[in-house]
């Protein structure tokens, strides 16, 4: 301590200092470039290497992209137009646009149906994705699966209507009984729904119109990117409840229940999806009662759902494990029984924690739906590798088609992962 202060250590600040601006820096783009691109020698070399790489990439692809031909009707015509110059033949995309999106067998005058279903999909998932939207919109989310089913497959409207009615009645019965006992409510709901479905089936048969409003389309006529979307959405939504059940089973204290879940999860996670698709393709039909003939689309949905439910179960299990034990104890001490505690306290929190993980699984699964092309379903890759490349007109246009498929997948997957990151940030700042 210096002499000047020696006489008086005591000090009282009478007035607070006003905040001052930071000292002036050398600003401008030049400084930015120096700081971010050439701060050290090693970094400068890295920058130059990166620039060279970028140059190679762009000089290789840009002329090809920009010089693309959009209005030819076959590859040979494309080549004529290009006349030896580098350039893509994007006309395959415009000419086969519908086939790439809907497969080659969906009735062409009905393309508006899957398109409308896609548009409505955004409306249906919006309240799920953005919690700020009014909760009433969830009603539409509940109706959507039946609506979409009817739009895409067509046929008489009574099927989806009674299916929906069954669900509604079942839910009403469940909601009425759930205050008493979850088990009774669940059983009651299922029985009520089954009764409605049964009666509805009979009524529906009787009411069958001479000509359905929407022409029926068999599921093997589905194809293209639409098939990827449908498989992805159907399987992820079906596998969520199964995944939750598996996760709860795996966390359970009952050794047999736990054992069954562990074996199922580890088995499914241990084998590649493609072998499961082989099962769907060559084996699963043998496991259904003779003569039931479940078609390939359903068999594939079953196997992919099994696959994703095992992965989702693991994510949710992580969420369950991350919850503090106190939450379970608090629920117990208030006298909540197991279904109540799970439904009201544990699962809402565990699912919230698991959302990013579930989204990751969903993105992965959506990408993996391309594997169905290996078992001769005509998804977008199946269309490219099959009918389009096999046709005399477009034999040999790989890059344009694969680029197109890549762009589609990138848009969807990148969009979902950006959403997931937004949600993660939001949940992090949200009330805990």
């Amino acid at each position, binding site marked *: 301590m210096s002499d000047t202060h020696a006489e008086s250590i005591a000090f009282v600040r009478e007035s607070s200092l006003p905040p001052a601006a930071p000292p002036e820096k050398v600003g401008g783009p030049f400084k930015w470039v120096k700081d971010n691109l050439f701060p050290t020698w090693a970094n400068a070399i890295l920058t130059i290497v990166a620039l060279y790489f970028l140059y190679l990439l762009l000089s290789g692809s840009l002329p090809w992209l920009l010089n693309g031909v959009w209005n030819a009707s076959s590859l040979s015509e494309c080549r004529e137009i290009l006349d030896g110059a580098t350039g893509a033949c994007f006309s395959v995309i415009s000419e086969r646009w519908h086939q790439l999106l809907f497969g080659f067998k969906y009735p062409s005058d009905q393309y508006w149906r899957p398109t409308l279903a896609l548009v409505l999909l955004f409306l249906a998932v919006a309240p799920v994705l953005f919690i700020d939207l009014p909760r009433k919109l969830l009603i539409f989310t509940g109706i959507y699966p039946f609506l979409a089913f009817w739009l895409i497959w067509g046929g008489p409207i009574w099927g989806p209507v009674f299916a929906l009615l069954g669900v509604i009645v079942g839910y009403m019965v469940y909601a009425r009984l759930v205050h008493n006992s979850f088990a009774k409510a669940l059983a009651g709901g299922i029985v009520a729904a089954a009764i409605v479905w049964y009666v509805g089936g009979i009524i529906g048969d009787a009411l069958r119109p001479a000509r359905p409003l929407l022409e029926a389309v068999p599921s093997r006529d589905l194809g293209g990117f639409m098939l990827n979307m449908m498989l992805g959405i159907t399987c992820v939504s079906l596998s969520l409840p199964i995944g939750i059940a598996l996760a709860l089973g795996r966390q359970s204290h009952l050794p047999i229940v736990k054992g069954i879940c562990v074996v199922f999860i580890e088995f499914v996670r241990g084998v590649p999806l493609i072998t499961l698709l082989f099962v769907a393709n060559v084996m699963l039909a043998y496991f259904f009662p003779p003569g039931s003939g479940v078609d390939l689309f359903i068999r594939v949905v079953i196997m992919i759902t099994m696959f994703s439910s095992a992965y989702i179960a693991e994510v949710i299990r992580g969420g369950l494990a991350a919850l503090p034990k106190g939450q379970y104890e608090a629920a117990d001490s208030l006298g909540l029984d197991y279904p109540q505690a799970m439904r009201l306290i544990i699962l809402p929190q565990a699912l919230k924690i698991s959302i990013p993980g579930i989204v990751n699984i969903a993105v992965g699964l959506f990408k993996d739906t391309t594997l169905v092309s290996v078992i001769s379903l005509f998804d977008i890759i199946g269309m490219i590798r099959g009918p389009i490349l*096999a046709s005399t007109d477009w034999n040999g246009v790989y890059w344009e088609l694969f680029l197109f498929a890549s762009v589609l997948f990138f848009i969807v997957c990148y969009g979902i992962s950006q959403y997931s990151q937004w949600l993660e940030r939001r949940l992090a700042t949200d009330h805990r």
Partner: protein
Amino acid sequence: MNVADYQEEVKMKKTVIFGALTVAGLAAGAAGAATLDDVKARGKLNCGVTTGLAGFAAPNANGEWEGFDVAVCRAVAAAVLGDKNAVEFVPTTGKTRFTALASGEIDFLARNTTWTFSRDTDLKFDFIGINYYDGQGFMVPKALGVSSAKDLDGATVCIQTGTTTELNLADFFRKNGIEYEPVPVETNAEGQQQYLAGACDTYTTDASGLAATRATFENPDEHVLLPEIISKEPLGPLVRHGDNDWGDITRWVLNALIAAEELGITSANIEEMAGNTNNPEVARLMGTEGTLGEMIGLDAEWAKRAIMAEGNYGEIFAKNIGEETPIGLARGLNAQWTDGGLLYAPPFR
């Protein structure tokens, strides 16, 4: 709305009763007896074809299937259901075709499949005849300067997996004591891509398939088929083992197409032939005489409809793969026995 759609719809309705999971409707019938009943109840014939081989089975730009194998499917549908368009074409790969048939997903497989002993016996199928006598050949670029398959020592060979050609290839090179390196491909399109990129020196498959493939090249003249045919490939449609009635129906539809050519019945003159003919066999075939249709559980005009669907064998051949088409195949072994070929339909009696 036709009968087929109506039937499909009844099926769809029932599934809704069983619950929401069964979303897409029942498809195939039982993997047991009475295929005919199933097909009739469904109103559609489920016919397995390739995923795309020009001339044999490929969807055109409108998504309609066309080709040599497709025509056989349509003839069967016309005979059984009275509508040549009442066919659901199920594309199958080399891997999936047999399971699709065995599991009842398809009723009839017309996918240039080679008739072999083990497929007929061990895999429990019945080949109902031969619609194309083929043999495995090699295609090479002219620039390679190879004139015989025996010169291919050390070559890289593109080969479609899951076919008998794969085994024939191994046998051929083994027998001649020369080496090769296989490049397995899944589809004909990929085989073509690999071959054109020079990733293999030669592409081998059925000679008819090679011709069909070469026809789609930018410069077909730069490629030659080598003279050796290294295998017998009798290609024929097949059905499940055990349903002999269904086997009979399909067998005789195919025979009717072949016999029609022999007897000079074409889709153009068929009405005339049916109306007034002195040839008793034609009359039996046309259903104006005898009860052949009844014997196989169909009506009298079954064969007439089958022939009217896409024409007789010769017409089908000419329209899809004949010399006038880009595929450009000569009749060769596939000529009528009267012309020195192997086609020989048993008598309709």
